């Protein structure tokens, strides 16, 4: 539209620039396991089933949802650790979903991943120097001044003592190990880092150190993050935009503050209502929407809206004909308010879920017309 700088809604990426990463209708199906004695191959596990989103340079997209909804699989497909079953992944405008290993190699350095578990993701028999230096060797890169110097520089940057170059992972605490993983991911100066639950295993105080480090590195190097987590408080803190996943699909995606202050999908409502807030006065007036039952199996997802079997709105608020619609027709993820996409036939803004008081509905777009 105009060239005015985007307002505080930094969440709305400047529409003029092309996204760094563009994921369109990506699927990842795993072969079904044969069941029981009458060994017949089961239905495929639709771990990720038609996911679309974009990430701009320097932006953080949060990815949340229950265990097993497909967050890690999405992250691994995006970092090309596994091949998608269908759909397109464009990186800097170029479709990389079909690229061969060879053709992928120069791009690999641009996208890195940090793993959840700081204990199992580092080889216990390698020194920190070897671990952090591996990406240089794989890529056949000779950094100026040698690998050792580069690695020690990285260690320093993430707050590790460079003298500990020859130490082994078990000699470090959880937070320090997570820093080792971060240093390794940074080695090749990537543009995008997929962070899969990078702070979930850490103590709050150490968690705060790592979150701050990720933010500093982002502003220093213009990094973009896909930040996977099940802690919705951390995600609110670090993300510009947030996508909520359920059973392999995105239920809702919008800028951070809209997602938390005026969420529209019944699943997001339930998730937010379930997060306890460290303030007893607020806690005592909040409504808690309990979801019943378990996540359905991703190899036989429900018909129509995949959430309808657990949807509180479906159960208690809709008429018979509306329910029929939920059971038979798949919603599509579409824009229901500016910049706010929702997968639901009957979306509704709620503003009372976090502090227990209906607040003014925030508008998502720039305030100046």
């Amino acid at each position, binding site marked *: 539209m105009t060239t005015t700088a985007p307002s505080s809604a930094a969440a709305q990426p400047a529409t003029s620039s092309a996204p760094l990463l563009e994921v369109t209708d990506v699927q990842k199906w795993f072969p079904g396991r044969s069941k029981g004695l009458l060994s017949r191959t089961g239905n495929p596990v639709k771990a990720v089933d038609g996911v679309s989103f974009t990430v701009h340079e320097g932006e953080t997209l949060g990815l949340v949802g229950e265990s097993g909804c497909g967050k890690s699989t999405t992250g691994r497909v995006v970092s090309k650790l596994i091949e998608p079953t269908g759909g397109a992944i464009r990186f800097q405008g170029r479709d990389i979903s079909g690229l061969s290993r060879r053709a992928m190699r120069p791009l690999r350095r641009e996208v890195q991943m940090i793993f959840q578990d700081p204990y199992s993701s580092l080889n216990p028999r390698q020194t920190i120097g070897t671990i952090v230096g591996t990406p240089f060797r794989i890529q056949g890169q000779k950094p100026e001044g040698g690998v050792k110097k580069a690695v020690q520089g990285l260690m320093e940057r993430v707050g590790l003592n460079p003298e500990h170059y020859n130490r082994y992972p078990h000699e470090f605490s959880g937070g320090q190990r997570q820093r080792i993983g971060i240093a390794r991911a940074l080695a090749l100066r990537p543009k995008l880092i997929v962070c899969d639950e990078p702070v979930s295993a850490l103590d*709050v*105080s150490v968690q705060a150190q790592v979150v701050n480090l990720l933010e500093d590195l982002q502003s220093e190097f213009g990094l973009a993050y896909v930040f996977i987590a099940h802690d919705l408080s951390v995600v609110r803190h670090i993300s510009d935009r947030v996508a909520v996943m359920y059973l392999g699909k995105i239920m809702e995606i919008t800028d951070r503050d809209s997602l938390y202050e005026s969420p529209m999908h019944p699943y997001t409502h339930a998730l937010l209502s379930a997060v306890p807030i460290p*303030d007893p*006065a*607020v806690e005592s007036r909040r409504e808690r929407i309990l*979801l*019943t039952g378990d996540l359905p199996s991703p190899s036989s997802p429900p018909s129509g809206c995949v959430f309808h079997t657990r949807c509180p709105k479906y159960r208690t608020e809709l008429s018979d004909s509306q329910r029929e619609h939920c059971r038979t027709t798949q919603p599509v993820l579409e824009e229901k308010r500016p910049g706010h996409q929702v997968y639901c036939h009957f979306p509704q803004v709620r503003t009372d879920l*976090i502090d227990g008081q209906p607040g003014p509905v925030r508008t998502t777009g720039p305030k100046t017309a």
Partner: protein
Amino acid sequence: MSTAQPVTVRPPLSGEPFLSVEDLKVHFPTDDGLVKSVDGLTFSVRPGEIVGIVGESGSGKSVTAQAILGLHKGSRAQVSGHIWLGGRDLVAATENEMRQVRGDDVAMIFQDPLSSLHPFYSVGDQIAEAYRVHNKVSAKDARTRTVEMLEKVGIPNASSRYDDSPHQFSGGMRQRAMIAMALICKPRLLIADEPTTALDVTVQAQILELIKELRDELDSAVILITHDLGVVAETCDQVVVMYGGQCVEKGPVDQLFDQPEMPYTWGLLGSMPRMDRVRATRLLPIAGSPPSLINVPKGCVFNPRCRYSDRVEGRKCFTVHPALEPSTPEHEVRCHIPPAERQQILLTEIRPNL
């Protein structure tokens, strides 16, 4: 609909505590020296009360729980002080007596569900067995009761999952099965050690609901160990904040969140992102690392990381161990800064950044 919100805050409980821990010390002799994991801990839990224990990793929360259950008996651990449970001192009890206590009065939910489920037996049978040890009922009745309990903790199709072995359950389901096993015996004291840390928020909400139900139905006493202050705010009546094996602050949940007075508690609250706040600034981690439990800092255990020790005259923070002293009758704090000054710091320096 503008009627006043129902007040869900429970009236303060009076009455005798069901569990009283007095000056508890648990020290482990190791090759490197004596590890003082718990060093003079005092707190109590009344029937119907949920007491939260919070503190960073390694502060002695699990070791405290293990001591209450008598799990250090027969090990090299040196346990002293008193653990009064319904009038008797568990520190002095024999292993045999403890076994009985563990079955009849006290149940525990462990952080790691696999450690307490046997891999070869069905989940249902293990729970039914636990039930029958303490209740004279037929196998059939025990099965019915078990299925009810599994349903209650949110296992779908509980009767058909009864015969599954633990590995056929997902991690979250195992955790719920273990909670069913702890609750089925209707314990008078339930100790839950990080019962929901591995679970996602929706399941966590269900489990916390169950624990509150147990408390409401049976007037059980509950100790909830967690590092999630949100969980504490939602569930607990009283809070014990632990640091370096000691209690540094304790009090009713509202006072603790509204008027925290110990610098470590300030640090804890400040380092946590809040979902109910529009993001303003960076998180504020507590500088430094946890204290050595072998060479415990002289004076206040928190002094190497405390930003306020220069407010205390005569370097007292580095020489004198502060006592846990009441700030209000219900609220106790271990810090040399005088109460009035602490409240001033809270108001002018801490609150604005929380």
